């Protein structure tokens, strides 16, 4: 199989894994916490890398996921105990941790197979360089990691669909049903951290954010049903990966960057042309209402005269 196929598959799996958990971030108005976590796991990744010397080990996933949870916890603590407003608390926390991560990379630059560029935009173009044989086929090892991650995320959302849905839409109902909003907050943050870490190598820190937010937000403009929203977000990830790959080839630029751009274009299309929540449709609907009102008023006036 050729490189294009594997790269697009890698992009799709990374994007789809992010989109599954990211949709809930969008619904819970916590997109920026996802942004913060995707930056703040950097020191966790470097430290775990220094200790284990490998990229896709389980300890590394767990170590970095712990850092993600720590981030969510620090943000919450600064907000609650430190009386700092939420947005500032997010901003202070992730820049601080990210800066430490960059410093660690510079300090151990010889020992960590990781540079600043990789941190920002990943190495998706090189996934085919590192392959393993599966049933006689050379499969990029990133596909195995990301495939595993995608299945885990799918299972997670499938098993805890009800809890995620209720805590996202109606926290007070969740409370009365005995579902702890705090517990599910941290469970979701844990999943976001793990997803961030696992997809980090292929798409980089900032572009994880694009895949966390854009597919979910776009899907939310297309439907009112959570199930359809999740399904659409998966399809949108696929479309972003395909479009991104060919845009990057055409411009001879970063594939991950192009994927983010395409996901943004898809969002803009939905924003204007969505048949349910698009700006155009809403304009037309508004005009119809105004016209009907005018007609009724005209009729009233005719009757009176």
């Amino acid at each position, binding site marked *: 199989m050729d490189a294009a196929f594997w790269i697009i598959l890698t992009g799709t799996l990374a994007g789809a894994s992010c989109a599954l958990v990211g949709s809930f971030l969008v619904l819970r108005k916590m997109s920026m916490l996802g*942004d913060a976590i995707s930056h703040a796991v950097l020191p966790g990744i470097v430290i775990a890398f220094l200790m284990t010397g490998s990229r896709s080990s389980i300890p590394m996933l767990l170590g970095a996921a712990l850092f993600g949870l720590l981030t969510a916890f620090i943000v919450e603590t600064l907000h609650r105990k430190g009386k700092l407003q939420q947005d500032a608390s997010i901003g*202070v926390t992730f820049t601080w941790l990210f*800066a430490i991560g960059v410093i660690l990379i510079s300090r151990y630059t010889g020992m960590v197979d990781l540079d600043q560029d990789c941190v920002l935009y990943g190495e998706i173009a090189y996934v085919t360089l590192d392959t393993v044989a599966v049933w006689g086929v050379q499969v990029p090892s990133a596909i195995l990691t990301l495939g595993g991650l995608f299945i885990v995320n799918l299972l997670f959302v499938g098993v805890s669909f009800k809890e995620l849905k209720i805590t996202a839409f109606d926290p007070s109902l969740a409370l009365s049903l005995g579902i702890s909003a705090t517990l599910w907050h941290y469970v979701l943050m844990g999943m976001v951290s793990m997803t961030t870490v696992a997809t980090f190598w292929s798409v980089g820190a*900032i572009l994880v954010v694009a895949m966390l937010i854009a597919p979910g937000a776009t899907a939310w403009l297309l439907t009112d049903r959570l199930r359809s929203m999740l399904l659409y977000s998966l399809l949108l990830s696929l479309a972003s990966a395909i479009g991104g790959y060919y845009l990057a080839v055409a411009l001879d630029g970063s594939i991950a960057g192009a994927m983010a751009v395409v996901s943004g274009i898809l969002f803009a299309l939905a924003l204007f042309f969505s048949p349910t929540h698009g700006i155009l449709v809403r304009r037309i609907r508004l005009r119809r209402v105004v016209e009907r009102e005018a007609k009724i008023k005209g009729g009233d006036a005719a009757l009176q005269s």
Partner: protein
Amino acid sequence: MNDSLFDFLVLRDLSTRTVVIGSMLLGIGSAAIGCFALLRKRALVGDAVAHSVLPGIAIAFLIVGSKDPLALMVGAVVTGWFSMIAMDYIVRNSRIREDAAIGLALSVFFGLGILLLTHIQHTGAANQSGLDKFLFGQAASLLARDVAVFGSVSLILLLVLIVTFKELKVVSFDPDFTRAIGFPARFLELLLTTLLVVAVVAGIQAVGVVLMAAMLITPAAAARYWTERLGVMILLASLFGILSGYVGAFISYLEPHMPTGPWIVVVASFIFFVSLLSAPKRGVIAQLLRRRKNVRVTLEENILKTMHRMGEADREMQDPRSISEIQNYRSIPAAVLQRGLLRLASEGYVTSQPNKKWSLTTQGVVEGARITRLHRLWEVYLTEYVRIAPDHVHDDAESIEHVLTPELEVELQRLLQRPAIDPHQQTIPYR
């Protein structure tokens, strides 16, 4: 080592001087304008703007074909501006909320920037190297020319801030009021937006796109702990910005390969955490101490009140009481009670008597009577003025008695015309 330290401190070396002065100048503007962003709850918008200037820089380079700082700056300002307008438009015209709009603008614009930047790198345009310095900042490789351009931008920014300070202050705290008194609120908000974009463009020279948010948010958040006044907050934030720039540049000077930008951010974060913990009023330690003191005062006053009540019962105010006798009247854990009594003794309100008993001093009787009086006056007030049933007023009085000031007591006595008894038919002890 000591020589190099001294050389650094007096900025003897020209390139060191450039880096340090540059880092400091670049920090001031963003720290000052960050205060406004913070107060308007738009701290993370600054983060999105910082990411959005990247495509502008790349496009400007593609058009001009050189790294002319002015051209790059214009490009950066244009896309930074455009992303702010896009965020605003999305939030106002769709069901997408601010957090997602910020995240979208941030990642999509940044993705575009990365795409264009890699495109420029791959096509191998001459003299493109160094454009990617915008990602992580280039404080260490600042040229005198850059410092001159971006430093003067910072200064102009500060000047505008000083001149329009009053107007910006009003619009940050109360946009509706601004409109009502006839100030051009829309224009002022636009001005703030523009200043934010300009500050970001200047600041990324020092720390880069990704960490720019810290230059805006962290000094302002740190300054917020020390003061309630906007003017002081801006001064402090600028000071923290300068300090972070200086120390950050120093650390990266000490060790080669150390990036300046991240160190500036780490120093700023350190200042933030110190402020968070130790600021006199809003700091965490001060809050903790205040809560401790409240608990202590409440306990002491409750003990005095209870002993006063025992005195009322047997008409012997200063009789010695044992711990268990006091506990019969009010259930306080013995150890806590013991500690409270010891402290009251050291303050002269009670004295210890033989057989592990304690008695009120004259001063203690007066204080116990004061708390009792406040409690009962409040009960009268609640039944007569707030019309709460007499059996529901006790709990409220239990907490308010520790808070009422002497002025309020005078006011209560005047309002209630010095009632003789409370709703539970108990005499109110006056002086």
